[in-house]
């Protein structure tokens, strides 16, 4: 292909591209039309879009969606300020919701319906944000290698008897940060640091990969215990893939701290942005997220626990057993996050 043909190609493509760009420019994200709501979501597209489409079907309200990492979206909200088109901010952990509230990008919102449906521990006391789904971060043990009687609490994982037997991912991960933040709340910072040091000594391998990788490693014999969120295990358990089912069948969920505070829980959640222009539609969407239909959908599709009481827990989740959950005020997770990261650094948790 010679240069002329190539530059022709580029010009053609370039003009086509410009047309595409132009078609996106006059953003239809502004709200003179009433049937609109704009969402910034840290929840991945695959785990929110189908629900949003159902919402549009039922209400006729159009939903515009951008997904991304929570802190980056938060930064975007901050600098966009009063001009931000976003109406709702969705995250997958309570720490970030708290951070958003602190940054002043959320506003008090809600409705009686939301306040009645969602338990007080799973929403912001002042109404800046609401939990949407719950997940437990718990301990999985390998059948035959660990007697469940040996297990008791998160605190116990620092005991030397577990030396070289535990798999957990990096402390860069927010779920680990939140778990440690909850322990800072429960037993204080210095005890938590001593615990983290003990835990690090018990690692079977340097932290790498995600939660699923820890579960896989445990099933493959690298370690005897893995710390992971329940839905990652649920996905393996309910997979169509036989090798994944086989993997999950080697593991059992253990619910720690049942005699005191309970299993560490986190939420995915949502709040109305400070400069939202479509507040009514935003609240309608939040109510839809906590409807029985959406709650069941999250439980079935992503193995997450409902925030709304009385929603029937599907068989896939129920099979993991019942447990009592830590009802720590979730904003504490956000408040303690920094201390948690710092103490994990000091403990050498990579």
């Amino acid at each position, binding site marked *: *292909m*010679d*240069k002329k043909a*190539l530059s022709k190609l*580029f010009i053609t*493509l*370039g003009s*086509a*591209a*410009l047309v*595409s*760009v132009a078609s*996106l*420019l006059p*953003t239809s*994200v*502004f709200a003179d039309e009433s049937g609109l709501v*704009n969402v910034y979501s840290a929840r*991945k*597209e*695959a*785990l929110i*879009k189908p629900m949003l489409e159902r919402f549009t079907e039922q209400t006729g309200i159009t939903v*515009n*969606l*951008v*997904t*991304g*990492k*929570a*802190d*980056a979206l938060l*930064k*975007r909200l901050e*600098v*966009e*300020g*009063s*001009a*931000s088109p976003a109406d709702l901010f969705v995250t997958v952990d309570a720490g970030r919701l708290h*951070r958003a509230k602190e940054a002043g990008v959320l506003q008090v919102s809600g409705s009686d319906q939301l306040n009645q449906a969602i338990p007080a521990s799973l929403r912001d006391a002042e109404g800046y944000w609401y939990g949407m789904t719950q997940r437990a971060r718990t301990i999985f043990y390998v059948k035959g290698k660990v007697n469940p009687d040996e297990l008791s609490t998160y605190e116990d994982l620092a005991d030397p008897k577990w030396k070289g037997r535990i798999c957990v*991912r*990096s402390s*860069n991960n*927010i779920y680990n940060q939140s778990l440690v933040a909850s322990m800072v709340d429960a037993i204080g910072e210095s005890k938590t640091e001593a615990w983290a040091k003990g835990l690090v000594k018990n690692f079977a391998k340097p932290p*790498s*990969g*995600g*939660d*699923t*990788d820890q579960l*896989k490693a445990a099933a*493959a*014999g690298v370690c005897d215990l893995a710390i992971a969120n329940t839905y990652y295990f649920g996905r393996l358990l309910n997979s169509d*893939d036989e090798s994944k089912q086989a993997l999950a069948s080697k593991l059992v969920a253990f619910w720690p701290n049942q005699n005191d505070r309970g299993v560490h829980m986190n939420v995915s959640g949502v709040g109305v942005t400070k400069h939202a222009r479509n507040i009514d539609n935003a609240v309608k969407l939040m109510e839809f997220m906590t409807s029985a239909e959406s709650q069941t959908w999250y439980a079935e599709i992503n193995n997450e626990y409902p925030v709304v009481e009385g929603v029937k827990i599907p068989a896939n989740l129920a099979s993991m057993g019942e447990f009592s959950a830590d009802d720590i005020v979730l904003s504490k997770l956000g408040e303690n*996050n*920094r201390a948690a*990261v*710092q103490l994990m*650094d000091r403990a050498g948790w990579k």
Partner: protein
Amino acid sequence: MSVAALTKTKQKLSWLSVSSVMVAFLLMLPILVIVGFVFSGSADVFKHLFETVLADYVGNSLLLMLGVGIGVLVMGIPTAWLTSVCDFPGRKVFAWALLLPLAVPAYIIAYTYTGLLDFAGPVQTFIREATGLGYGEYWFFEIRSLTGAMLMLALVLYPYVYLLSRSAFLEQSASTLEVSRTLGYNQWQGLFRLALPLARPAIIAGLTLALMETLADYGTVQYFGVSTFTTGIFRTFYGFGDSAAAAQLAAFLLGFVALLVLVEKYSRRKARYHSSAEYKAKAKLIELKGVKALIAFLICLGPVLFGFLIPAAVLGYWSLTKANLSDGAFAQLAWNSFYLAALAALIAVGFALILAYAGRLNPSKVVRAAVGTAGMGYALPGTIVAVGVIIPFAWLDHQIIAAARSLFGLDLGLILSGTLVALLFAYTVRFLAVSLGAVQSGLGKIKPSLDGAARTLGRTPLQVLKQVHVPLMKSSVLTALLIVFVDVLKELPATLILRPFNFNTLAVRAFELASDERLVDAAPASLLIVVVGLLPVILLSRSISKGRAGS
């Protein structure tokens, strides 16, 4: 030449310098924003990092650079030399096939090899089943390690060195080789004493790109649990929620890169590398036979096999057998990726031409500084560039909104920061270095006396560019277009932050699924990134080869 004409020329000259400085300033803006954070924020986070993990981060980053540096040179130079100077079976195919790993994003190759080689993967499972051994009872390479990260990055970054040094080898005229024979050098001496030193600017340019990309990498090292300076930046941003401290760390990264670039410039000092031949005869290829040909074949096969064929095969296998293809819309994703990449490539190369040309015509200190700094964004992680872009853009948007409201009573909304404008700008900031490097090394090889001759014949600088330089540097410009295109295609973090509503690319789709620990479902989108990247890679590399044969 009349006085009037002379003044006119001078004006045009300064017009070019001024626009080059403006381009550089525009591109530096996000970087200045980041550097500006150094003077704000608290030292608290810094103190903590310094006391705990910083030494580790810096050490790992340096080791990673060293490993990747050696890797890309070892894979890039011999293959470039073999495919441009020697003849052996498969040479023509390898000439373009060696570029293929460029189309594979580093984080994708990391996911793929992990799926294949980690403890729970098929290879080790097979070993255990075949031997009956358990974990810890046999040795196997740990892919998730610093060494693993070096290998993954080197496998997808060596094409920079290959591409640039190959076009340098190709542009070395036949007479260079004849000179080497006249001097009594054999082929190897010719390679080490003439060909390599002459190709040095291109090799260094390729190496610099690879190293900057290495520094900016987050996806791979994060997945492998290797703590580098960049993971430190993100830990600060995401863990502490402190974007100011993260920006401070990024500013230090920039300082380091600036130092690197300066050292390299200093080491070259006054050396100039111009092609001496007015007429480029087609050099006769050195024919390799027997064992030599086999060795050459294997040397070229290795990078293609491990950097492209194996990962692409694994992705293809996952896509066909296991992945969930239901939430498709792949055509739309592919088109979005494609036109963004094409537009960004044109913009970046346009800017690079302005800068490189101004630097050549009017190498005043200001212009040189502008050219030297404009490409710095390449060493910054995309997320940080995006933050640097969105802050000034949002500010400007607010001014425009306020003006529109007071003048016309209109509510305009965000014109720049929530649209593709910001995204394209961020790509340009991030990838200008790539196009600039390629364009400069091409331009540098054209003797200044050619400019002089053309100017004497009454051509304006613009005409000199168009009629003399562009034809002569066709392959360099194409190379620049190609690399930016493929880089943007793979780009993720800036796209993730800056893109408008309801707009996704292949990279975003692949990342979302992969980071949700659904590697297999991410395979189709990953494979499509590779496929969309292939077409221009093949077209352009052909055109580069032709450019050589035809001139």
